[in-house]
């Protein structure tokens, strides 16, 4: 079933939940509605299902206006985040429910039995038909919910955070299984998620939403590699922001900071070895005045390191965005522009080593590099190294 959503708007009180949303889904597609919580994606799904009303706009299902139809006549399957299985019914009865409540289409007990068992086989739960929901694991319950939704042969399947309540491992298994299932049965499906990895892995196309608006629609590759704005870029992965400027030719440059050496700096006291009170020089100074024997050396009020941009600020200031794996690190800077940063933490778990750093400007920086580079450069905590984004994006906002 093809879906067209046109100019849908929705307010809850004064809060705008959906702001003139337009989107189109082709028949047989598997679509991810991706966005942070509060972006309106679940509300949109519930409007398409008929569980929520829109303030304005239309939804066309197979070209027919759907908003005037009641939810129980739209023939749309819905899967809830918390399964919403009927607690007092067995797995079999849960799946059979939709077949039994049909008014215009009566099934014989034999037909119901055949259909339900076929679906339970499809979700690998045919041995569990007489169990109750409370006797199943989360992943099993969600598969029952899916079988129940499919039992009425809907033309459209809507899934609201279908894996949201499951633990990480089951979630991964189940979403791969759902992708394969979709490849077999080709039912038009929309699922809501806030997990970009899940959306990327499962969906044919991803619709990124924020603040009640559609930010971008496209294949996972398109939205990841050609994000239209900083929100989409941000939402699809970790990133770093560099201050920069554009010259007359439109080339972007990094804006570098250099710490100005404070006057009379002796050896900088290592604050980590001192007691907490040394962080409050006013107090320690006072104690020194009253009881010189307790605190003989009042720590000097060190001047704050001031931030001075070294490179001249020419042209337009811009923000440069780069993913953690798009950053080059070195100990010896070459002719490129570099930013100096201090290593705070190394996380070697995973194929790439994750380095948390702090720039001289005080801003954090996350870099992911292959382990070989760390070993070659002998990088360890508190080292000061040079970083350069290999690939940056600028968004006009």
């Amino acid at each position, binding site marked *: 079933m093809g879906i067209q959503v046109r100019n849908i708007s929705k307010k809850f009180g004064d809060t705008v939940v959906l702001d003139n949303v337009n989107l189109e889904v082709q028949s047989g597609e598997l679509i991810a509605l991706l966005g942070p919580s509060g972006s309106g994606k679940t509300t949109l799904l519930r409007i398409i299902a008929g569980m929520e009303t829109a303030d304005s706009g239309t939804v066309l299902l197979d070209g027919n206006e759907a908003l005037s139809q009641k939810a*129980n*006549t739209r023939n749309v399957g*819905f899967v809830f985040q918390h399964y919403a299985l009927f607690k*007092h019914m067995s797995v079999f009865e849960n799946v059979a429910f*939709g077949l039994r*409540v*049909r008014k215009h289409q009566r099934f014989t007990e034999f037909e119901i039995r055949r259909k339900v068992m076929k679906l339970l086989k499809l979700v690998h739960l045919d041995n569990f038909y007489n169990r109750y929901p409370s006797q199943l694991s989360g992943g099993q319950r969600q598969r029952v919910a899916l079988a*129940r939704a499919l039992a009425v042969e809907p033309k459209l399947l809507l899934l609201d955070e279908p894996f949201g309540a499951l633990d990480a491992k089951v979630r991964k298994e189940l979403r791969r299984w759902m992708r394969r299932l979709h490849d077999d049965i080709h039912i038009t499906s929309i699922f809501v998620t806030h997990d970009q990895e899940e959306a990327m892995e499962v969906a044919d196309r991803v619709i990124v939403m924020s603040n009640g608006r559609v930010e971008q629609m496209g294949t996972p590759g398109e939205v990841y590699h050609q994000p239209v704005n900083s929100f989409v870029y941000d939402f699809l992965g970790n990133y770093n922001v560099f201050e920069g400027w554009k010259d007359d030719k439109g080339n972007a440059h990094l804006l570098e900071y250099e710490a100005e050496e404070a006057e009379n700096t002796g050896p900088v006291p290592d604050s980590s070895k001192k007691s907490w009170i040394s962080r409050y020089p006013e107090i320690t100074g006072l104690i020194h005045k009253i009881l010189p024997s307790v605190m003989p050396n009042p720590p000097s009020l060190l001047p704050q390191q001031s931030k001075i941009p070294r490179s001249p600020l020419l042209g337009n200031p811009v923000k440069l965005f780069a993913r953690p794996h798009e950053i080059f690190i070195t100990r010896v800077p070459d002719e490129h522009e570099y930013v100096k940063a201090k290593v705070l933490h190394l996380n070697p778990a995973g194929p790439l080593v994750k380095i948390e750093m702090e720039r001289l400007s005080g801003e954090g920086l996350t870099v992911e590099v292959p382990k070989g580079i760390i070993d070659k450069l002998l990088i360890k905590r508190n080292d000061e190294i040079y970083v350069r984004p290999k690939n940056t994006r600028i968004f006009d906002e």
Partner: protein
Amino acid sequence: MSKTPTTNESFIVRACLIATAVAFIGIFVGLPIIIVFMEAFSKGIRAYFSALADDDARAAIRLTLLVSAIAVPCNLVFGLVASWAITKFDFWGKRLLITLIDLPFSVSPVISGLIYVLLFGANSTLSGFLERHNIHIIFAVPGLVLVTIFVTFPFVARELIPLMEEQGTQEEEAAVMLGASGWQVFWKVTLPNIKWGLFYGVLLCNARAMGEFGAVSVVSGHIQGVTTTIPLHVEALYNEYNFVAAFSVASILTLLALFTLVIKRYIEYRFPGEIKALK
């Protein structure tokens, strides 16, 4: 409940606390129950049953059954409708409705009875209309039914509202998405989910409906064999110094109370999940 060294008091402390609790319950609850039956049977089993077989006693029992047979179903329907409305929809005045449902609990039953006398009795605003149409409410059975409904209407709603609030509307939504109509949702999904909570509420409502004294006393008029319910009949017998008969009739209510408690305990034990929301 697990015992940890921190909460495990010495034997003497434990023994004292347990003994105090048992003694208190024994004196204030156990003893009166025993005395009811001792007094009822003090002149033998025949006297007990003849007191129950008395015409006025039988009329009182019939009247009590009639009143609760009307009041309890009314409150069952009202409780269901009110809890459904309160938990499944949002509407203006919802908070006010929840507060009003609790009103009969906070008003003295005698005052409740008095309100009905003022509303329907002689010299009330409605009295002219009622007289013209020959409708008798005060000092008649309809009055007893009305005040009993008033006094007992919070029971069902108060059991169901927290239960339905906890269960939310997801299962209902799922049923609708599968094509069920409103009635199908109610009978196949909502009602099975709340049936034990509902039963529990009805049980408490019934116990109170049969045992209500204050409100009923005000509107009854105490016409022997016509408008006396069991509690009023007990009072009348007692005032006539007919102690054996008074306690015999009272023992019926006591048995009802004990029976209600046993069923209540059984439901709590058998369906803990559905009752826990009420606590």
